[in-house]
């Protein structure tokens, strides 16, 4: 939370968080040097400590900011009013693209796994995500895309675990590969809970999003 009274302070806060995100996205937490962060922004060390008394505080601010953009982007996907399972698939591609292209998102996810593991932050954040997604999975059961039987919470926990796992087993540095691995993960996961009659449609739905996402990470294919 920022205080509206700190006008001048606010102006330094944003750039500090962005610079920190850049470092946290590409280096392990322990190797990030605050001097490098300060050097990137035109701010004194004192001014930085005014906002962020520790590296941990700065990291938490990065996580907060990443969660904010994540929530905003997710709200955009929800506003599209697709079906539940389509929404879950779209969300996974949205997260993947943010993870591949935005330092802030990537840093936030890295940090949730590193410092989030030892404080309550990681658990709380994952619980929130799982609760929100379970709601959507419930909708997908009502719509008949997810077969009756599995607990919606189990389904989304599997999806979230797979994504987090993919961040380790695949390579965020090779966006093409990462997206193809995401598609493979979906094609292996879907038969586990999707309605068999809808499988053909759903795997095409996934494939078509992979193609669009690939176009977004390789600029020569991007029509824009």
């Amino acid at each position, binding site marked *: 939370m920022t205080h509206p009274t700190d006008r001048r302070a606010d102006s330094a806060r944003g750039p500090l968080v962005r610079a920190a995100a850049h470092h946290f996205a590409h280096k392990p937490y322990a190797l990030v040097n605050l001097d490098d962060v300060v050097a990137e922004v035109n701010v004194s060390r004192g001014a930085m400590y005014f906002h962020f008394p520790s590296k941990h505080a700065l990291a938490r601010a990065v996580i907060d900011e990443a969660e904010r953009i994540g929530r905003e982007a997710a709200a*955009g*996907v929800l*506003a*599209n*009013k*697709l*079906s539940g399972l*389509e929404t879950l698939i*779209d969300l996974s*591609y*949205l997260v993947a*693209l943010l993870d591949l292209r935005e330092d802030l998102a990537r840093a936030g996810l890295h940090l949730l796994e590193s410092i989030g593991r030892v404080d309550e932050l990681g658990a709380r954040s994952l619980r929130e995500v799982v609760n929100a997604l379970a709601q959507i999975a419930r909708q997908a059961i009502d*719509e*008949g895309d997810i077969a009756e039987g599995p607990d919606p919470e189990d389904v989304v926990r599997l999806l979230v675990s797979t994504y987090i796992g993919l961040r380790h087993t695949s390579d965020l540095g090779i966006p093409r590969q990462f997206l193809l691995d995401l598609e493979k993960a979906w094609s292996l996961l879907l038969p586990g809970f999707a309605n068999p009659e809808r499988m053909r*449609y759903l795997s*095409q*739905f996934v494939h*078509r*999003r992979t*193609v*669009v*996402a690939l*176009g977004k990470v390789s600029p020569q294919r991007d*029509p824009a």
Partner: protein
Amino acid sequence: MRQSRSEVTRGKIIDAAVEMFNDGGYSSTGLGDIVERTGMTKGALYHHFNSKEALAVAIIDQASGILLTTFQGISRSSAPALESMIHGVLVVAELANTDKLARMGAVLLRIFAESSESSARNYGVRISEMGRQAQRAQLEEDLRGDIDAQAAGEFIVTAMLGTELISSAVSGGEDVLERVTRTWEFVLPAIASQQSLPYLREFLARESLRRGQSMPPPMRRPANYRPWFQSCSVRSWNVARANGSSSRISADLLIRARTSEPSACINSTSWFAYLRTTETGDSSVGTSQKS
């Protein structure tokens, strides 16, 4: 974001005007009635809008803005462009029918269609946005490679505006989603590439599910199925004749269809299909393969 006081007042006037145009109709509501409803002075209202038409234009612009933002939001998603076009048109049609301001905007847009620069501008924005998406759809190989993407975009806007107009005339907009879905069923075979068509049909069939209704059974078509309106002229003529009230328009379209390029032929014949289904209530046309 904080609104200035002047913006708040402007918003209040617009809200009141939408209410009153809605209740009493545009032509029989005067600026004086709106002054009365808002409780502000005549001078204050005239400061914002110096005529009833200026107020109407403001409503049209604001309504179009809402619809355009919604459509663009859907286009920005991770979906291929043609999916966004199909889904976006339906979401916007629903919004234009449920949101009071958007609905009034559509009504006023029609009233001013021939006389106001604002209508031309607003239709123009829609057409160019749809054309942009159609171009993307062509790069993604969902839109047929041998048609002009910009023209396809314009045709979709045209067909959907006509559909919304008829829906609002016939049912007060109650059945707009059904009708827009049906129009898409006719438009898709004309514009979609062979390899994407089956998938896109299924994507369209799921629209009812997305609105919280159960899925209709999948459409089954014989392997040699060809949309009937692709065999252009003779059949269209029969449809036109069988369908007394629309025969004049149909004949006109038919002449154009015969004299211009094939894409125009597709345009006009899908309109026949459309007119026939709407006027005879015969929903089996084109969907007769539904089991």
